[in-house]
């Protein structure tokens, strides 16, 4: 296994001079990404997400600190890094708008100097996985958003990049198209070992795809760990949803009645005060229960609370 991290970021800062004075968009962040990781990068608008990605992809130079991608300094070795890196911005296109889709793939092949046989082989596989066959002769501007996003992904991974930067790849897509994009990314990461950095507002993308989550706010990294660990650390409240056999008042020690609807009761309890098993035992001792489910804290809810400063990092 390659022991070198794909991305190394140390004390990274970016200051912009604006009319209202200097603004620190990225205020000193550190992290490393190992080969094959699938990292979600989240944060509210203006938190510094896209500025970080721009520094990693060679579009912006850091004001201070160090960044290395594939062992290269992004801006200084911009062209060399570009051959080993893929970028997809959800709301912009990397394809040739007025030309049939297949011409975009051909141009990408030449730009990244992919041998024709190799290109044909990779493309055949991508066409199958992303169902691109019927779209090849269609001008890009005539593709639907979902079709276009599949095409964008194919064009971005055609050069077989080691790192893939994705910015809101599922924005505006319907449920089916979202699922297609997620399935593709999951397989790409698993089968090719491509390292993926996913910037998104859609926390569903993150919980479904990412092994690791980084949250940035006000230019600082306020969380870096697994999605599960975030749930355990911040999501202290769990909810036991109970369907009673009869409509009756419920009182269980250690839980608070959050909501009642017909014979259904929502009982909130703190993870560190009582276990679910204990609570269920107490409940069953006093009531007849038809059914019950346990709801883990909603990751979206936790992140929203972190953004609002309610859950201290």
């Amino acid at each position: 296994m390659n022991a070198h991290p794909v991305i190394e970021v140390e004390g990274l800062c970016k200051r912009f001079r604006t009319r209202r004075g200097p603004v620190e968009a990225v205020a000193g962040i550190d992290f490393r990404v190992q080969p094959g990781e699938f990292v979600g990068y989240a944060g509210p608008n203006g938190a510094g997400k896209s500025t970080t990605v721009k520094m990693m992809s060679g579009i912006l130079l850091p004001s201070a600190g160090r960044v290395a991608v594939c062992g290269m300094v992004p801006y200084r070795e911009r062209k060399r890094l570009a051959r080993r890196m893929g970028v997809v911005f959800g709301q912009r296109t990397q394809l040739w708008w007025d030309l049939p889709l297949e011409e975009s793939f051909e141009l990408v092949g030449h730009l990244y100097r992919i041998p024709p046989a190799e290109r044909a082989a990779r493309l055949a596989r991508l066409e199958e996985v992303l169902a691109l066959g019927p779209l090849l002769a269609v001008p890009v501007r005539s593709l639907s958003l979902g079709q276009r996003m599949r095409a964008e992904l194919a064009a971005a991974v055609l050069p077989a990049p080691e790192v893939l930067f994705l910015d809101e790849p599922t924005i505006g897509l319907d449920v089916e198209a979202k699922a297609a994009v997620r399935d593709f990314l999951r397989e790409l990461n698993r089968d090719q070992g491509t390292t993926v950095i996913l910037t998104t507002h859609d926390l569903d993308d993150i919980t479904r795809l990412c092994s690791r989550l980084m949250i940035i706010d006000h230019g600082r990294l306020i969380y870096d760990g697994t999605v599960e660990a975030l749930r355990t650390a911040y999501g202290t409240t769990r909810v036991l949803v109970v369907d009673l056999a009869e409509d009756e008042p419920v009182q269980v020690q250690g839980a608070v009645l959050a909501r009642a609807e017909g014979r259904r009761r929502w009982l909130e309890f703190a993870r560190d005060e009582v276990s679910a098993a204990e609570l269920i035992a107490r409940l069953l001792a006093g009531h007849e229960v038809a059914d019950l489910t346990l709801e883990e804290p909603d990751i979206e809810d936790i992140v929203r609370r972190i953004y609002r400063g309610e859950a201290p990092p």
Partner: protein
Amino acid sequence: MAEHAGVYLRLAAASVRATARRPAYLVVRFLSAGMIVVIEVAGVVLMLDRFGSIGGWRPAEVVVLFGLAFTAQGLALMFGDTLEADKVSELVRRGTFDQVLTRPTSPLGWVVASYVDTRFVGRMLAGAVTVAWAADRAGVAWTPGRAGLAALAVACAATIIFGVLLAAAGFTFVTVQGSEAVNVLIYGGQYLASYPMQIYGSALRFVFVWVIPIGLAIYVPALGVLGRQGPAGLPGWLAWLSAPVAGAFAALGGLAWRAGIRHYVGTGS
């Protein structure tokens, strides 16, 4: 850059193919670009007719100068129109330029090749026809040497105009930067509320697109084409000085472009 010339040729071919997919549109743009030349030449001819001659130059001879300038402008704008301030700020505003920076190519090569504007072929052809027509009226006997001088004049003037456009584009990166930084923070760089100020007014534009190219690259070679004596003491070899002058303009333009990109990327601060 030379070793990958093929890539840029492919990009340019793709941009031409993209326009060619709408042939009616292409023809209209092509014709309108040519028509503008016809109208402007007619204006010059009518104006000159009133004077009879300017400083000993007959109207047809002056029109040769203008025709050479039109041809050079067409050539320069075919590749350089995309470097105009409003187009560069549009590239930045839409985030297209950021994407260009993630490609394994030279940003300038990419931008120029991807936005070749064939409409200006119309201006080039109309300019060339104007030169042929006016030279005929002026009684020019074409020789290979004279044709070479005319081609030199066009190539050098086009290079000068391209260099100026390049410098202006470099400057646009600086003017667009301030507002971009704000928007990067607020909207992730997707919207740019304020366009950069118009960096060169029409008077300045007139100087750069007409006066300087004609004065530095067209006037002296045109003397040779027309078989005229220039002002006393102007040696004939001066015509060949157009090439290094044009080269200097292109080099300065290239430096300004690079400085602009360095500023955009953030090394300039």
